[in-house]
């Protein structure tokens, strides 16, 4: 999976490069995001391409969050479509993740120490 990684003002922004994150590709996502998680503590996942996520995809993102918080870092999500946002809300994951409208807002939240 060709995850694009940008480093901006001390924050790493990784763009999920697929329309659907589900059982067919969530393991691939976990494998390819692992080096990013190892190398960084403050990560923003840009979900602007994502149109559908199933429980495997949500589980993969939850795994990212847990790895980062375990080492004192944090994960923020940004640029979700309404449908993806609805799925987060359906299963109460919107309360677990720090979700922002744009990557700028997500980075600003890191800088503000939230």
């Amino acid at each position, binding site marked *: 999976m060709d995850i694009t990684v940008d480093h901006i003002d001390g924050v790493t922004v990784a763009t999920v490069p697929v329309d659907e994150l*589900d059982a067919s590709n969530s*393991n691939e996502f976990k494998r390819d995001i692992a080096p990013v998680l190892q190398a960084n503590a403050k990560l923003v996942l840009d979900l602007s391409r994502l149109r559908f996520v*199933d429980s495997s995809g949500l589980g993969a993102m939850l795994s990212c969050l847990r790895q980062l918080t375990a080492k004192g870092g944090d994960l923020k999500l940004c640029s979700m479509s309404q449908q993806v946002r609805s*799925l987060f*809300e*359906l*299963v*109460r994951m*919107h309360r*677990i993740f720090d979700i922002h409208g744009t990557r700028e807002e997500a980075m600003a939240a890191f800088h503000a120490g939230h």
Partner: protein
Amino acid sequence: MNEHATTETPVARLQESIQQHSRYSLGRSWADLSPRDRFNAVALAVRDEMVDRMLETERRYSGAHSKRLYYVSIEFLIGQSLGNNLHNLQLRDACRQALLNLGSNLEDIEEIEPDAALGNGGLGRLAACFLDSLATLGLPGFGYGINYEYGLFKQEIDDGYQREKPDNWLAQPSPWEITRPEEACLVPVYGHIEHSVDRFGAYNPMWMDWRVLIGVPHDMLIPGYGGRTVNVLRLYSARSSRDFDMGIFNDGDYFKAVQQKIASETISKVLYPSDAIVAGQELRLVQEYFLVACTLRDVIRRFEANHPDYSTFASSVAIHLNDTHPALMVAELMRILVDEKNLEWDEAWRITQSTLAYTNHTLLPEALEKWPVPMFEHVLPRHLQIIYEINRRFLEQVSAAGPGNIGLVQSVSLIEESSPKHVRMANLAMVGSHSVNGVAEIHSNLVKTALAPDFHRLFPERFNNKTNGITQRRWLLNANPGLANLIRDAIGDAWITDLDRLRDLDRFAGDPAFRASFRNVKHSNKERFAAIIRATARVKADPASLFDIHAKRIHAYKRQLLNLMHVIHEYLSLVEDGRTPAAPRTYIFAGKAAPGYWVAKQIVKAIHNIGRVINSDARARDWMKVAFVPDYRVSLAEKMLPAADLSEQVSTAGMEASGTGNMKFALNGALTVGTLDGANIEIRDEVGPENIFIFGLKANEVREIRQSRSYRPWEYCDSDPRVRRVVETFHTNRFCPDEPELFTWVHRRVLDVNDEFLHLADLAPFLDIQDQIAQAFTDPDHWTRMAILNVARIGKFSSDRSIREYAEDIWRIEPA
């Protein structure tokens, strides 16, 4: 309004539209279309007429900021739509002429339409009648249901036994449905709860490892009479989230991937063929949740489009639960408000209760839905948590009000403490709704006193009655054009939208000319139906004989057996006693038995066997015929009801919630023979006791016999030789010479002290009143007078009246 309306005549407009659809929707000229495609072309042209009106209706509702009703029902028994839609749009004559211009006949094309059999019986047909009334009254009310691929099975008869055949009514897409893939919604099911904390340290149960279904809506347009208002019935199909689960597919298990896709789409595949006993079937639970989740997702989407927050939800939205099948709505609305919209529990609960209302449809204990907790948790883990929390808070209140009353707590708890535990859906619906209604006066009283007395003591203000009704547009105007025209000629057509106006017919009951015309209409309806009997049941029925019709689901409590015992009595009186009946009679039965209901299927067989003996006995030829007309459905009922002289409504008192067949028969000029059960009581009050044949035990007498365990069925045999002779027949092989002892079960059952339907207690009074009926039929003038008065005084039982009461008392919605 239709934009073509001002430039063309309706005939020219429809004719052009039909031809356009022939060519451009179906790809052939009208002359080359198959009969089915001719129906499709006409239906598409009629649908076009409704679309503009539907959009205009929506503009009106939005402009008025109307409160909307969402009527949620696991069944909508629509039947055919073309005839009814044309009547309601007042385009029937125009369509007939347009088709004549094309060389075709409207009635022939109407016959081609398959029934949309998305229901089992009364509950589903009531929902369909209610949609017709909502639209006719201009009320913003929308139906929500499931787009079953297979409707209720088709009934075929093989050597007297019922055989079920699948009804794949969507094998060819319905021209009435407009698919809306852009409004599809996601529905998670299965999985487990992971107990965690959120970013702020609060408890946060997460729903993990769920499987997602997609609900795709299909809209059927529902025109009200006059065509000003066109509402929508939205039916959901389940689709898999993707063609295959590629993860499984990539692992090399192609068939497992296909199976998972099929499993997802199975959710809306088939209607359960019983309106009562489905508990314990996991697919049914998923089906019910699928309906609830799709409906609520749509309700929320529409609400949020115009409202900034949830403070006005309950004043903008009413959701009606047609029986307990959608009772999960209580938990789903709470889940959305608390989990997704972040409302505090108490505020969410206030909104939920103020929004939801529930109709109870049955007192039969086995029909009250309960789901095993382990299955429930497997399918809906988060909803089980919410139900436990609702229950905890509710039982706290109950305990506070009556400390130490363990019996009360056990009786009202949402969880039955059995092994395994069960979730009680009726309790959930009653706790989570602001209104609980029964469907006839007696039934509503029994809900309060027998079914849920503890709930009634806790919340007396919630309980009310809304007696069922039927739409006169389908059941008189469309089904019985001869009678409709006769009435129109006598008193005008105000009754089409105000059924109480039929009262004006009262004065015609004594008019010899009107009575003669009424009889002529009935006779021609009987001739038409006799042809159907001949074609389907292979029985030659004499239209001059008394058409005695027992048409409804086959069920022990509806007592087709009681009626059958009368048939046997008449036959034995004729052939053994030489007693000829006062009038020749054709005993007509129709109805489906649930495929897994042995007794009901045996009753179907018994009707056939008894009919075979009687119909082939030369001694009975001029006096008796017995016919079982197969595959009872809405379109058959529309031909059967107008032909009835006598309507059999003989359930054990206290067991039929309301019935609506009783109303349809009376509206079509049949006299009722019935027990004081369901709406029969109110029909008697309306038509007058002198114009109805009432017999048998009353509900309180039935209850007393059961409670005191004083039922001694053999005493009825000892005291009445007629009863003994009929009962003993079942101990012989008289009606089953080729299958010895086939009906001995009837003998055992009716002589059993545990016969909860008390057949023999009511048999002698039933035989007596049937004698009176036969005698009355020999006086055509008097019989016709009674029949006219039944029609004239049946106005209360319009579904327009029912819907007005629901709208004013429960939903608080108004015409826009």
